[in-house]
């Protein structure tokens, strides 16, 4: 590998198919690097040609574009591009172009699409692997909170829990849960060494004996990069990569543990006590998302801005992941993804809250106050979507894909789906649905059953008229067959 610090002229090809394109363009004198996704997947393969402190961006590149860009660099010039950004001669992070798909300054995503996710030296040069001892790690973790529903400490501080785990006997495990969330998968795919830097620091903090990287089998690039990165150097603790089934519930922390243990069927475990007492094989285990560890790595290196990794999915060309300040809004994320017209957004993951008002802050407190979720995923419902049909379908999916263990979730989602069907037959039982959802929230074993009601509740509030109209035999968006005509 070329010494990255000497890479003042280089061609980077970002995206899932980057390796093939990059290989086709090998040429003497011009380093061509297949980097991971930048998060702006709609633009990929994205060619970034860098020469003497300027980078040129060519989105949706084919082999001809790559060849032209290499030719230009070989001639000491830059290719025709959609955007150019001036930056330092020796640049450690992706310069952010003014193209739809990008937004804001990056911290934890800084190296996604810039450094070589296969080369630990690239991370070592750009940031450096931390050797902070347990106390220093716990100090850096002070005040940081877990991110996402796959994190056992979602929106909660975790430093005290770690200090407790450190004191507990038994072989201890650290789990990186990168299952399901596009931001977590992006980090593993494009900057796995940052995740491992944070996770191995966590392993020192809790005196762990094992470190597991866990991701969905559907995120093949993330798994491949994770396996390579795990083998690339010594992290002071054995690192194992585990693929979980491609189902939403597999990200729930205790189901992640079940998957890592190799159970062929996943269901939630009772709690308390939680994994910090009895986790993998009954031993103390900390479970956090890749985002949580990447933010920790930043904090250890003295870079801890209050930012959130947000992915925009749904009715968009392709999922877009950006990093925004917590003081920024959901609207900034959708704008970066090029969303103009929409019916609503489901904010906070699969069972997030439905809203038409995207002018809501990204801090967990702001999202919570608006009854939206903090998973870091904004699902856009396009112009022609019917919100009543959306929540019906989403609840139906919940009834078919829950783990099947507890009654309020297993039977509750089924009955909630029935009640949403009844709306189409003229009965809108608002009181009955509210009662049922209250019990699902207060008595389900895990976050799956506790979160499902949020989607329905917020939609009922935001689109009360549409629910009433459906019960009266009319779909305002004109997309549903109602009134017994189906």
């Amino acid at each position: 590998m070329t010494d990255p610090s000497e890479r003042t002229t280089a061609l980077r090809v970002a995206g899932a198919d980057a390796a093939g394109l990059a290989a086709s363009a090998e040429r003497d004198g011009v380093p061509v690097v297949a980097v991971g996704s930048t998060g702006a997947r709609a633009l990929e393969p994205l060619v970034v040609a860098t020469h003497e402190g300027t980078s040129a961006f060519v989105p949706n590149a084919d082999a001809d574009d790559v060849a032209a860009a290499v030719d230009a660099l070989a001639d000491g010039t830059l290719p025709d591009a959609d955007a150019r950004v001036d930056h330092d001669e020796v640049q450690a992070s992706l310069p952010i172009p003014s193209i739809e798909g990008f937004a804001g300054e990056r911290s934890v995503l800084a190296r996604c699409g810039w450094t070589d996710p296969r080369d630990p030296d690239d991370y070592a040069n750009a940031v450096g692997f931390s050797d902070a001892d347990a106390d220093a790690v716990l100090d850096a973790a002070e005040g940081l909170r877990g991110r996402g529903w796959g994190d056992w400490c979602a929106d909660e501080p975790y430093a005290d829990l770690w200090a407790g785990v450190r004191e507990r006997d038994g072989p201890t495990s650290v789990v990186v849960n990168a299952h399901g969330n596009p931001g977590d998968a992006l980090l593993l795919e494009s900057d796995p060494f940052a995740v491992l830097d944070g996770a191995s620091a966590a392993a020192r903090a809790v005196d762990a004996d094992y470190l597991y990287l866990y991701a969905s089998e559907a995120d093949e690039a993330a798994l491949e990069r994770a396996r390579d990165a795990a083998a690339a150097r010594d992290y002071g603790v054995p690192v194992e990569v585990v693929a979980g089934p491609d189902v939403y519930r597999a990200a729930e922390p205790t189901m992640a543990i079940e998957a890592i243990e190799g159970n062929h069927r996943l269901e939630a475990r009772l709690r308390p006590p939680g994994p910090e007492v009895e986790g993998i094989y009954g031993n103390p285990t900390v479970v956090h998302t890749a985002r949580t560890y990447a933010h920790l790595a930043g904090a250890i290196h003295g870079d801890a801005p209050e930012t959130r990794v947000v992915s925009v999915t749904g009715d968009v060309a392709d999922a877009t992941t950006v990093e925004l300040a917590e003081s920024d809004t959901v609207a900034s994320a959708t704008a970066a993804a090029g969303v103009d017209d929409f019916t609503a957004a489901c904010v906070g993951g699969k069972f997030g809250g439905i809203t038409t008002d995207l002018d809501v802050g990204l801090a967990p407190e702001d999202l919570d106050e608006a009854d939206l979720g903090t998973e870091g995923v904004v699902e856009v419902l396009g112009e022609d979507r019917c919100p009543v049909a959306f929540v019906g379908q989403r609840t139906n999916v919940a009834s078919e894909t829950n783990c099947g263990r507890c009654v309020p979730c297993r039977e509750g989602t089924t009955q909630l789906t029935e009640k949403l069907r009844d709306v189409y037959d003229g009965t809108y039982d608002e009181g009955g649905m509210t009662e049922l959802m209250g019990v699902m929230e207060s008595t389900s074993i895990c976050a799956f059953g506790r979160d499902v009601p949020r989607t329905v509740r917020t939609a009922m509030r935001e689109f009360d008229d549409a629910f009433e109209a459906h019960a009266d035999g009319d779909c305002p968006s004109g997309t549903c067959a109602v009134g017994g005509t189906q």
Partner: protein
Amino acid sequence: MSSEHADRADAPPLTETIAPGTATDPDVKSAEEATVTVDGQDIVVPEGSTIIEAIEAAETAGEVPALCYYDRDSPEAEKIGPRSECRTCMVETDEHGMVPSCSFPAEDGLTISTDDEAATEARDVNLDLVLSDHNLRCTTCGKNGRCELQDAAIDNDVEEPRYGVFDDREAYEPLDDSSDFIQIDRNKCILCNRCVEACNDVQVEGVLRMEGHGADTRIGFQNGSETMEDSTCVSCGHCVTVCPTGSLVEQGITDAATIPLPGFSQKNSIGKSLESTGKEKKGPMTRMKRDEPKDLTSEARTDENPGDWL
């Protein structure tokens, strides 16, 4: 020599593993003796207790069905549950809010209320949710009068369950009448998992398992067979003794408690049943569990393919 072993091809290897399909729960019991307050009464419970032990020792203000909780005073019973699936044991605590009493450690100093309004509503709603998926044909059921769900519904004054009862003939699973010893009626199963634990954790037979997910969750067989006859069951009967409803009943008494109405019986209550093939005498005591674990990855419905709506 080899011909002598041919008829034992189904004999299980010694390394056969048990795969009940359920999660490995943490130990939810208390670490030391504790004094808790239940509806104003001080109750002392020994080490190894959950809140429900205190509730059972008290005169409670509210009715706590705790339907799926298996409460027998024997070392074997200790190996069954708490599954905490039915959530009809929810109570309010000052310290932790609403908790499931069957599976929450009895910590010293807890203040517990059984008649809290939200907890009472939660128990009522969850009991009705159990009934919503239960074929309530008590009059043709062999467990009529000795059914824990029936008792809970009566004690809880259930008149008309909010969500009705499981009454969709199209959706009924056939009766499994293929075994000479045990009849299975999954339409009455509440998925309490007691039978799976009795089979795997007490008898260590490894026959029954929890399988599927969501609305398709069911009790099945670890060898993947469709019928009891083709399973590796040794007919020990422990599953029947722990079943709270009419899902597992000894053959011969499946109609013992039915009300004698001409033409109506447990056997024809569903209208379809799986029968014994009578094809062979039982082979080796336990057959090989030959199937692969179910594929977790193929779930028919996803967001991209939400399936039929309406």
